[in-house]
């Protein structure tokens, strides 16, 4: 098992190198560079001076030397300076990563808390009124665009009812660590989490429901019934174990998907996370930040895949690696 994880982790290295190469090439292929971004609009800097600065910064070196410098620093956690924010990219990301991970984690938890029981009910009691209601909810969730739903939630619960703050991630005046602080953070998280979770359930519900319907006519379920296993146990001991397998395996992808897909939610709730920063940075051509963000979310996807592989190999004996 440990060997398998280690081998999979080692496999991540070439994946990450390839990813960083592609990102670097793409950023180089974009018109302009760091110097044009910083001094273009400044009439006091002459083209000769710009060229000097370029030379000094090493922007005229061959691409592999530049890439080497960039990746060498990046490995040490230094992604350079943000042109817009005039501070190191790393410190810009630090607080936001935590915010986004928190948001994604809670969204994932709420999604599973809702989707697994609903999927089980719909799958076990197919064609009952409960199933029909769940399926209807599912179609609704599937068809609703996230940005409209999030706006509606914001409008209703923050603007009209005033139950929750309009935006942000917390009140900075409250002392971190206190009970009050936790309540405040939770209040700020509630609407973004709910907006993402309430309509983020459809995939899991539909998958689970269909898989249970598939599983319950399988032969091994007949075997279980022929042993005299009570119906409830037929589900918990046999059907659900098989049906939850793909759901568990998908956990890794789901969480990283949420991390890299939080752009809408964070923008609408002006929640200071990676998604919001990503959108702003693209609009302001803040390339160092954009490349760092793409790199981070790319790495998150690779790690998520690894996580899914590990989970699957733990829960499914058929692909367990000794």
């Amino acid at each position, binding site marked *: 098992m440990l060997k398998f994880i280690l081998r999979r982790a080692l496999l991540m290295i070439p994946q990450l190198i390839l990813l960083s190469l592609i990102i670097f090439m793409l950023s180089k292929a974009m018109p302009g560079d760091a110097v044009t971004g910083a001094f273009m609009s400044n009439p006091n800097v002459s083209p000769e001076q710009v060229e000097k600065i370029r030379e000094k910064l090493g922007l005229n070196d061959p691409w592999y030397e530049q890439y080497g410098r960039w990746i060498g620093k990046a490995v040490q956690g230094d992604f350079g300076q943000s042109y817009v924010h005039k501070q190191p990219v790393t410190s810009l990301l630090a607080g936001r990563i935590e915010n986004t991970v928190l948001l994604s984690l809670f969204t994932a938890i709420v999604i599973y808390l809702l989707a697994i029981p609903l999927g089980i009910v719909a799958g076990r009691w197919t064609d009952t009124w409960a199933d029909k209601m769940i399926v209807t909810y599912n179609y609704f969730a599937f068809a609703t665009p996230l940005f409209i739903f999030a706006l509606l939630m914001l409008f209703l619960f923050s603007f009209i009812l005033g139950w929750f703050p309009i935006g942000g991630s917390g009140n900075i005046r409250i002392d971190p660590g206190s009970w009050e602080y936790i309540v405040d953070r939770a209040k700020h998280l509630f609407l973004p989490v709910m907006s993402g979770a309430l309509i983020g359930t459809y995939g899991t519900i539909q998958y689970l429901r269909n898989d249970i319907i598939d599983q319950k006519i*399988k*032969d*091994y379920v*007949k*075997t*279980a*019934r*022929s*042993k*005299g*296993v*009570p*119906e409830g146990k037929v589900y918990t*001991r*046999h059907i659900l*174990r*098989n049906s939850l*397998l793909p759901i568990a395996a998908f956990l890794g992808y789901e969480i990283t998907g949420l991390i890299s897909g939080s752009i809408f939610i964070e923008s609408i709730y002006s929640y200071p996370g990676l998604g919001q920063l990503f959108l702003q940075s693209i609009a302001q051509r803040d390339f160092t930040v954009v490349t760092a963000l793409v790199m981070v979310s790319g790495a998150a996807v690779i790690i998520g895949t690894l996580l899914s592989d590990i989970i699957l190999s733990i*829960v*499914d*004996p*058929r692909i367990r690696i000794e």
Partner: protein
Amino acid sequence: MKNPVLEIKDLRTSFNIKGDYYAAVDGVSITVHENEVVAIVGESGCGKSALALSVMGLHDRKATKLEGQVNFAGQNLLTLTRSRLDKVRGKDIGMIFQDPMTALNPLAIIGRQIEEPMDYHMKLSASEKKKRTLELLRRVGIKNEQRVYEQYPHELSGGMRQRVVIAIALACDPVLLLADEPTTALDVTIQAQIMDLMKELQNQMKTGIILITHDLGVVAEMADRVVVMYAGEVVEIADVKDLFENPLHPYTRSLLNSIPSNMEGKEKLHVIDGIVPSIQNLDRKGCRFAPRIAWIPEEDHEEIPEMHEAAPNHFVRCSCYKTFYFPEDRVGEKEYVATNS
């Protein structure tokens, strides 16, 4: 006469197809006695598997209508509630399934799957259960039982898995075993091994067995009594020796005539005309086999075919057996004089 273990009386199993119910098992009565092997034979689709699943209550209750009686140990299994039925199946009745590749839960170790019926029907400690399970594994011919106990189904071959399926059925010492084509999904050499195992177990355990098969070789080897089914009905019941020596019903005779080893110098293998009608298209009036022996005149069939005791303990449906003949046997004869047997 030995005591009956299971009495199926006028069982009718109907499936809901687009709102209408069609009987796949249509008024079947069979009795199984202690220590008796009753084979049920017939083509695919004749209702033999539906019969076994009806006895075990394994049909989807919403889409299936069950009528008649299945009397076992003083109660009608068809009318039992689910929880009462669960006290019978797995304990007093064990079932062996057709396809060992799919009959086991892929996510549980073999040991747990054999122990599971004991969880519900026997009061044993964990170590006693394990001991019993290892014993069962040895009894079904698995030699490295300690290892197999810990293994998952995908790590075993088809023959091994079928042995495990048999061990599950035997876990709580049932008095009746239902074997639904236990060798159909296996290759020929393994089939022979599994049949030998079942025979051996039957000799040791003295259970009643309903053996569902379309393999007449298996029937000849294992069965005490044979029930021949066609299109949801029983057409002939006889002791195994009687049936093979003196088959009466045209369907039974056609089946036996279709075995290559019974050709006796003939050049062409006998083929039964037509196909088994599907349950929606089945004509339920008159002799159901009549369309497939069209050369027999209509008046030779009964209007409402009944079971007749043609010989002691040898029952046959409809009167057409009296005048039935194979057309290829009559080639060259100009006139045919009906001879009643």
